[in-house]
């Protein structure tokens, strides 16, 4: 038996990690801002925003991918603008795979972060204000550090979700070796070819190991700071 993971498998894992890291890096600030808005502010259209954030969680991923294609394809309004303004093309590129993964991870990340922001006692923010803190300083010194466990947990969860993204990715970014063929897509491709069972098994084992590690890390982070009863799942 040859040593594994092979170079090709390493390439797939590296691409998956690269896509997921970019996806999560894009999504963390956006998710936190959305989570804070939904947790702390009452404004017209809040329910609509809440629904929109959750949409990728309940839509068939292929539909999410198709919507991304409409918006971010080279003739789509956002895709066209992005190419004009920055020369950046997302569709059929690894950056596109990252965008698809980011959109799919968003609801999970917002949920985890929102719970932890809601768990921060607002009276502490009031106390900070009476001690001379502006709203912004009170946010940075009270709300943000106290909600950090949820941010970390949400980030790990979003990372795991990104690693597993399939439907939106294959629809929007396609299945191009070395570009957008992440772990799940490589497994799917392997399944289409007779005699690839061993390769598929190896990739599947790698997926399981990565996902379980991410999940355990997420649970551990939340429990460490919120006590035994708290969990993200």
């Amino acid at each position, binding site marked *: 038996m040859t040593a594994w993971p092979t170079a090709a498998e390493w390439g797939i894992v590296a691409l998956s990690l690269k896509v997921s890291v970019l996806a999560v890096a894009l999504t963390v600030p956006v998710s936190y801002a959305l989570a804070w808005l939904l947790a702390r502010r009452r404004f017209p259209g809040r329910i609509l925003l809440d629904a929109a954030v959750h949409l990728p969680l309940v839509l068939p991923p292929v539909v999410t991918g198709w919507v991304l294609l409409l918006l971010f394809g080279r003739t789509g309004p956002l895709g066209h603008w992005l190419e004009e303004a920055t020369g950046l093309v997302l569709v059929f590129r690894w950056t596109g795979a990252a965008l698809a993964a980011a959109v799919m991870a968003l609801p999970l990340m917002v949920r985890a972060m929102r719970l932890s922001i809601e768990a921060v006692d607002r009276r502490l923010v009031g106390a900070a204000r009476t001690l*001379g*803190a*502006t709203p912004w300083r009170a946010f940075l010194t009270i709300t943000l550090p106290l909600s950090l466990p949820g941010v970390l947990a949400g980030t790990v969860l979003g990372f795991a979700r990104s690693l597993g993204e399939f439907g939106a990715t294959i629809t929007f970014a396609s299945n191009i070796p070395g570009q957008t063929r992440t772990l799940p897509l490589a497994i799917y491709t392997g399944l289409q070819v007779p005699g690839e069972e061993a390769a598929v098994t190896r990739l599947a084992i790698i997926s399981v190991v990565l996902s379980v590690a991410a999940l355990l890390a997420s649970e551990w982070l939340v429990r460490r700071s919120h006590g035994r009863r708290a969990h993200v799942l």
Partner: protein
Amino acid sequence: MSFDVALTYRAGQGARACAIRSAARLVAVTGPSGIGKTSLLNCIAGLHRPLSGHVRIGGETLFDSAAGIDLPPERRHAGYVFQDLRLFPHRTVSANLAYGEHAEPGWMTRAEALEFLGIAHLARRFPATLSGGEAKRVAIGRALLAAPRFLLLDEPLTSLDAPRAEEILRLIERIRDELGLPTLLVSHAAAEVERLAGEVVMLD
């Protein structure tokens, strides 16, 4: 005039009105529970918005609905000791004290505050590890170190046993006599009010 407060504000289900005009250094606000004593303090500190009226303390206008003045809490310089203390759980005692620390010439330093309150040995502990009396002293110290222009004390003796309560009472007396800050004390305990206050306002 230390206190010139006339407010209508929401408390619980209804609207309340309250007027305090006093030159006393320590004014006690008393009345049955649920009458809106804490809401009054929150309005004075700027955490709740009153319906109408004005708040002037030590000659400075903090709120005046007629003149359109409504300073945000961070500009009111209130030393607010909450009934539930609200120490920051992720900060040590020392970092809690430092939070609002405001170096002002002639005002106490952190070291002096630790000494004044007898909490120097607690500096590195986290709030969750403090006893009720210790936490209360830290909360008072945190409010004092922000160099406030006045103090708001909300039921400072609740949930303390008799010896601890006596310690805090003495501390409030020292604050009143040595620091000379206008102080509004909310309490429903007659003995405490009797002993501390230069003037008593009854809410009903």
